[in-house]
C-alpha cells in the first residue's frame, strides 16, 4: 500500500463524529512536524484547520468520534466509501468513548432530564465505535491519542508499512521509563496491567494509577486484576466506575473474553 509511489501527493482528510475534538487537535499539536507533514500530504478536508475542503476520494481518512446519531450512522458509510484507508483515532472512534456510558442507561430518560425540549434531540440509544459500522484499516487508541503515535501512523501509511504501535500493557512503558510501580510500592489501584500502551505511561509517572484511557491491551486478564483493585481499597462500585470511563464497552468485552487457559492458534 505504498502511498508514495507515483507523482501525485496523497490526500489526507479528517472527519469528526461525536467527540470533543481533542484527537484531531493532536494533529495541529504536531507543531514541529506539521510543515513536513504538509509537504508530504495534501490536507484535503480538515474543518478544524480550514474551511476550504476538497472533494474525495481521499487516500487517508482519519475519523474521530463515535456513532451516536442516525445521521452519523449514514455518514460513516459515505466516509468509508470516499477513503482508500480509514484510520479511527481516539477512544470515541475506537470504543464508543465516554458517551458509550449511555449504553448502560436509558437514553430517553437522559433526554427528558437534560433537555427542555427533548423532541429536538434525535439520538441513538447507543454510542458505538466506527468499526461497528464499517471496516476500519487501523484503530489508534487513546483519550486523547498520543501525538507521536499519530505521526507514526501517518508516516507508516506514507511508507506503506505497518505502524509500530505495540498493543502490550502500560506496564511495559512504566518499566522502560523507570517509573516505580504505583501499585506495588504505594498500593495505588492501577489499570496499567490491562491497558493498551501508547501514552508513555503518563499517569504512573506522576504517581497516580492508570485509568485505562487507551482501552484494553492485546492481552487482558481482567478477572486477575479485579481482586487486586479490591485489595487496594476499591469496593465493587468503585471498581465498576474505574473500568467504566472512556472505554467501558471495550473493557466489558475484554472481561468476557479473558480466558487465560484457552489456546488460540497453537498450544
Amino acid at each position, binding site marked *: 500500500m505504498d502511498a*508514495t509511489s507515483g507523482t501525485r501527493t496523497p490526500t489526507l482528510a479528517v472527519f469528526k463524529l461525536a467527540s470533543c475534538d481533542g484527537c484531531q487537535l493532536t494533529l495541529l499539536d504536531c507543531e514541529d*512536524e506539521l510543515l*513536513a*507533514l504538509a*509537504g*508530504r500530504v495534501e490536507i484535503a478536508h480538515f474543518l478544524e484547520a480550514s474551511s476550504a475542503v476538497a472533494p474525495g476520494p481521499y487516500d487517508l481518512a482519519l475519523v474521530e468520534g463515535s456513532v451516536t446519531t442516525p445521521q452519523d450512522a449514514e455518514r460513516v458509510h459515505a466516509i468509508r466509501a470516499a477513503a482508500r484507508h480509514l484510520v479511527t483515532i481516539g477512544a470515541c472512534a475506537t470504543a464508543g468513548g465516554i458517551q458509550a456510558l449511555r449504553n448502560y442507561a436509558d437514553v430517553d430518560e437522559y433526554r427528558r432530564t437534560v433537555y427542555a425540549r427533548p423532541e429536538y434531540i434525535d439520538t441513538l440509544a447507543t454510542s458505538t465505535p466506527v468499526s461497528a459500522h464499517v471496516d476500519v484499516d487501523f484503530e489508534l487508541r487513546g483519550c486523547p491519542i498520543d501525538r507521536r503515535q499519530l*505521526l*507514526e501512523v*501517518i*508516516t*507508516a501509511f*506514507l*511508507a506503506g*508499512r505497518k505502524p*509500530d504501535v*505495540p*498493543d*502490550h*500493557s502500560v*506496564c*511495559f512503558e512504566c*518499566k*522502560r*521509563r*523507570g*517509573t*516505580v*510501580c504505583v*501499585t*506495588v*510500592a*504505594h*498500593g495505588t489501584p*492501577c489499570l*496499567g*496491567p*490491562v491497558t493498551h500502551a501508547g501514552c508513555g505511561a503518563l499517569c504512573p509517572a506522576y*504517581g497516580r494509577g492508570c485509568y485505562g484511557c487507551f482501552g484494553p491491551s*492485546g*492481552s487482558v*486478564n481482567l*478477572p*486477575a*486484576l479485579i481482586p*487486586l483493585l479490591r485489595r487496594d481499597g476499591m469496593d465493587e462500585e468503585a471498581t465498576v466506575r474505574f473500568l467504566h470511563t472512556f472505554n467501558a464497552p471495550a473493557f466489558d468485552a475484554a472481561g468476557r473474553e479473558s*480466558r*487465560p*487457559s*484457552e*489456546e*488460540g*492458534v*497453537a*498450544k
Partner: protein
Amino acid sequence: MTVTDAEVTAVLDRDGLDALVTVLRSDGRTVIGPTVRDGAIVLAELSSAAELPYGWGVELDAGRYRLVPCEDGAAFAHSAGPQSWKNCLHPQRERLWSADRAPDGEVTFTEEEAATPSYAFLGVRPCDLRAIAVQDRVLTGGRHADTGYGRRRRGALLIAAECTAPGATCFCVSAGGGPAADTGYDLALTEVVDEDGHRFFARAGSEAGRRLLDRIPHRSADLATEVTARTSVDAARDRMGRSLPPVDLRALLGESLDADRWDDVAERCLTCGNCTMVCPTCFCTTTEEVTDLTGDHSERWQRWDSCFDLDFSHLHEGPVRSSGRSRYRQWLTHKLSTWYDQFGGSGCVGCGRCITWCPAGIDITEEVAALHAEHEATSVGHETAAAAHGTERWTETER
C-alpha cells in the same frame, strides 16, 4: 569464602565512600547507585555518596514493596529494587543503525557509534553480579555478540555491596548463589555498623579495584571489622525469605510441560510483562524500523521485548503462544530449564524481583514448589500404575 594472602583489604569510613564517588566522577565515570525516589530505592546516577539511601530499608512481599526507615543508618540495608543494572548495560531502547537515501537514490547505512558512558556501578548485590555474568554469557558469549552491550560492559567498574540484609522475597542461596561477592567485582564492600562506628570492609577484586583503593582515604583492615563483616554476610545466608525446592529444576520444569499448575497460575497472571522487565537476566529484544515523514531517513532501534507480549511469538496468522498459560510456562521453563540447554546454566539468580514487582504477587518459588508437588504426585501415580499394569506406563509417558 577463601581468604588468600594476595587479597587486598581495607576499611573505609563514610568519608572514604564519599571520596570513592568523587574519585570515580573525576575519572569521568558515570556513577550509578541506589538512591531514594518515588517511594523506592532505585538505581540512578549519583553525584555524591550522600545520595545513597542512608537510613532506608525495604519491607518486601509478593506484589508489595515499602520503604521503611532503618535505625542504624546503613546505606545498603535494602534488597533488589525495581530496576537492575541491565537498565544501564542493556538499555530499554538503543539505535542500531540508520540509513539515508540521497536524491540520486543511493542509500547509505551508518552503524551506530554512540558515545558509551564509562560506568561505575556502586552497590551491586552478589545476586546481581551473577545476573551480569549471565547476561555477559547471553549477549556477548555467542557467535552474535551485542556490540553495544559489550562496549558498555567492558568499560564498567563494578563495586559490590555484599548482602547483610536479605529481603523477604530473596532466595539467592537456593538459586545457587549467596550473599557474599565471590567473583566478578572490582571492589567489594561489606557495610558494618556497630558501636565502633559506620564503616565498610573493602576487598579489591581486580587491579582496577586495587588502584582505586590506593586513591581514597582508608585504613588497613582490622580483624574486628573483618570478622564482623564476614560473620554478618554468613548470617545472611540463613535469612533468605524464600527458597526454591532443592531438586533438579532443569529436569522438573522439563517434565512439567503438561502440569495442571500452569492453568492455576494463568488464572492469576496478568500477562503484563513486569516480571521479565524487572528480571536482571531477561534479555529479549525486538527491533523496530522507524522512518521519518520524508521517507528518506530510516533507523533501526532495538528495544526490550517480553515473552508475555503477544507480538513476541507472532508468526503468520498470529501468536504461537496466545494464552497466558503458554506464556507463563515459556518464561518459567526458559528461566529454570531450557536456559541450561542454551547457555549452560540457570537463568535465575534468586534476586526476588519478579516476586516483589508482580502486581498480582505471583511467586516463582511457590509456583516451582507447586509444580514439584504435582510432579511428585503424578510420578507416584505413574509408578503405582506401572506396577499394576506393567508396560502400560511407558505408553502413557510417550503420549
